[in-house]
């Protein structure tokens, strides 16, 4: 194993605080399927191959990261271990082909050059032109924004599987965004990676970009239940918690924050149908999020969450871009 990862695993004290917000733990009560379980197993002599099932079960919501008192980069460690298994010849995850542009764990990408201010939408936004147009209008109200196309769904799936780690890909991405000042990304996992790969670009999540607009957060009501997209939120937690806490205090709305102020994920953006081990039921998560809460409307940052909440409540469920 990589020495950095080995040292990271050694840093884990086994306190299990990261287990508390973990949706896999919440639904399975199996400690072996959590980050602390993997760390303890590795410390106790298990090999990464032994952790195949556990690594597959993780939905990469990043909830464990801000909970960790040792500041371990739990998400990156999990992705590295997935990549390590790939290197050992384990079947690529997800098992299905990622997209027409990928084969055998490699992504054949061709990236164009992106504009100064670019928005990278995820698949459900691309499929919903009403929402896409709305977002484009909102984000481009003062400074124009262009919609960035490209093999981003495949790259996101590749990151999830653990194999988008080559220096070549990173170099190509840096080249493609060399003119870009601000990049807005709706896929939380892709956002997390791009922020690391593009240190000179201001990279932010779609939720943050929209909630910062006065018209949007001014339209939130105290009777709203606001669902934060967890992976994006946790990827820059110490900065974003202040922003969202401010919005919560100002508007009086409820949010999917637990007592640790970690965003409870639904897991809906994780392509679980492509995985062997489907451990997290998004409907069950969503029920827990709104359990015992009174609200008149649900506002979601992630398009994946629209359907999930519509299935479990009779109240209106809207995308954050529909607030104005």
């Amino acid at each position: 194993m990589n020495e950095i990862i080995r040292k990271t695993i050694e840093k884990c004290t086994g306190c299990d605080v990261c287990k508390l917000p973990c949706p896999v733990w919440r639904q399975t009560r199996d400690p072996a399927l959590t980050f602390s379980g993997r760390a303890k197993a590795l410390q106790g002599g298990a090999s990464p191959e032994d952790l195949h099932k556990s690594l597959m079960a993780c939905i990469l919501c990043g909830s464990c990261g801000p909970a960790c008192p040792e500041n371990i980069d739990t998400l990156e460690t999990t992705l590295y271990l997935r990549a390590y298994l790939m290197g050992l010849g384990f079947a690529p995850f997800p098992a299905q082909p990622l997209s027409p542009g990928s084969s055998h764990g490699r992504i054949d990408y061709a990236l164009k050059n992106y504009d100064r201010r670019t928005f990278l939408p995820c698949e459900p936004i691309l499929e919903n032109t009403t929402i896409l147009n709305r977002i484009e209008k909102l984000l481009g109200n003062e400074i124009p924004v262009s919609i960035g196309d490209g093999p981003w769904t495949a790259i996101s799936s590749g990151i999830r599987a653990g194999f988008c780690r080559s220096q070549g890909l990173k170099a190509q991405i840096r080249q493609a965004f060399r003119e870009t000042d601000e990049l807005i990304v709706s896929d939380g996992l892709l956002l997390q990676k791009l922020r690391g790969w593009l240190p000179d670009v201001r990279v932010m999540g779609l939720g943050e970009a929209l909630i910062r607009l006065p018209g949007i957060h001014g339209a939130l009501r105290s009777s709203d239940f606001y669902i934060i997209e967890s992976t994006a939120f946790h990827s820059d937690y110490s900065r974003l918690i202040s922003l969202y806490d401010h919005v919560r205090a100002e508007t009086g709305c409820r949010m999917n924050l637990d007592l640790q102020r970690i965003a409870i994920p639904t897991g809906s953006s994780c392509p679980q149908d492509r995985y062997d081990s489907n451990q997290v039921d998004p409907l069950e998560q969503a029920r827990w999020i709104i359990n015992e809460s009174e609200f008149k409307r649900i506002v979601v940052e992630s398009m994946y969450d629209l359907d999930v909440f519509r299935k479990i409540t009779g109240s209106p469920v809207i995308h954050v871009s529909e607030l104005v």
Partner: protein
Amino acid sequence: MRDDKKSIKIFPEHQAGIIPPDPVAPDSLKGIPRVQTRPSRWTGQSWKGFVNFLHDNDIIVREDRPTCSLYVTDGGGIAYGMPRGVVGATSTEQISVIMKAAQKFRVPVKTRGGALTTEGESVSFGGLQLDMTGMSRILSIDEDALTVRTQAGIYWHSLAEALRRKNLDYLSAPLNLTSTVGGTLSVGGIDINSPRLGCSADQAISLQVVMPTGEIMECSESHDAELFDRVLFGYGQFGIITEATLRIRPFTPISMHYFYYKSLRASIEDLIMLIRADAADYIGILTIMDRAINLLVAFDSEERKRTFFSKWRSSIKGHGELSFGLKMAALYAMHPWKTKEALYLLGRKRALMPEFNPGHHMRDGRIVDRTVVFSKAVWKFWGGRQMVIPDLATSEDKFVEAVERGNAVCKKYFRNYTLYCVGIKLMGSKRRYEMSCIPPDANGFAYGCEFEPMLEGEIYGNDYLQSFKNEIYDIGVDMKTSYYRFGGMMKGYIRRVFGNNLVDRHLAIKREIDPAMILNSDVIF
């Protein structure tokens, strides 16, 4: 060959079950015969039959190494052992079947919740590890009677999450997110509101218990009270708590205030005075060595806060932050050779204080979800792969001396350390406190101090750490106090502290209800 013969002379053969005088070091247990309560140990016999029996009853025992390795140590990180197999608890009935089988096949069973023991109490040395955290459902919340019925494997934090949806809270629980209800009730459980609300165990109204022989019992103060009192504070010796009904209360944010002292004695005297006077809702002492001593008080309501400041503030000797800072600055200006120490104190304060007041947990100057705030700070600043936290639990009269003597031991062993002092209101019958963390001579209140070295990444040998702990524990023997953590590797102290009569009486009860002596063996017996 000659060497072998020589070694045989040095270490002569001895009778099985009797431990001879230690030929290497003097016997630390002076006056106590070196006789083990249970000289024989389980060596794996009947395991296969036990596992097959459970399998036939649809109970899966996981024996793979990755699973078993999750349980090799506890929060203390000093005792290491490996279970032969693991079962995740799912129901009371399942545990009942396991315990019946364990008695029949004489296989040891070690229960485990958050595993925040520090002396190996929740570590298996062979046998079956029963992971209780799977039993974590809340069964009912009675908002009128202010009670909750919950499965005992639930983390206090998870219980708090559910209660907060109804704007309710538990009464008191350890400042640790991953303690479980069952584990805490089995040892006591102390919070900074324990001076008002007592131990966590005292908030239990009734319990469902699986006996070591597998019977399922319900007990409370009015029904099978002896079992109730034995299981609470019982260190898992007399049964497995599977469900508990607990008192709860409305949730309140708290306002926190700090007073600073240079003298340990003065701060403890004020702590005792304030506890006796019921002057604050939460109260405790947290120190950076014996240099910066912080008495923290907190309030659930503005009224209680106002009363404190009008009636009690002038009676305590603690300074405000600015005044104390100026005094310390003057002190270190006159002792420039102690600049390193001054910088450490300053750095520590700067790192710690924001963690105790994080913006996203503050509303109108009050802390919302104090347990989360404190617990995260505790893990961040005091957590580690090894946690060495010997403690002393004393009556009021002995507390100052015990802390001062313990402080001297800390100084001898470590450059940096923390003391954490709390009071505990005694609530229930005396029987449940027997042979527990509550010292027998405590009247009305007991007091506890944890002595926690800051290991800060330095590597210490286990012998060094054990010597430190033993010196603290020896103070307890000398002063006839008790300990919050007296199980596990502290077994050797039990007879010294509590005497043969009491220990033998408990041992007789244990033998009667656990004939094969298989439940949580090696913790006390």
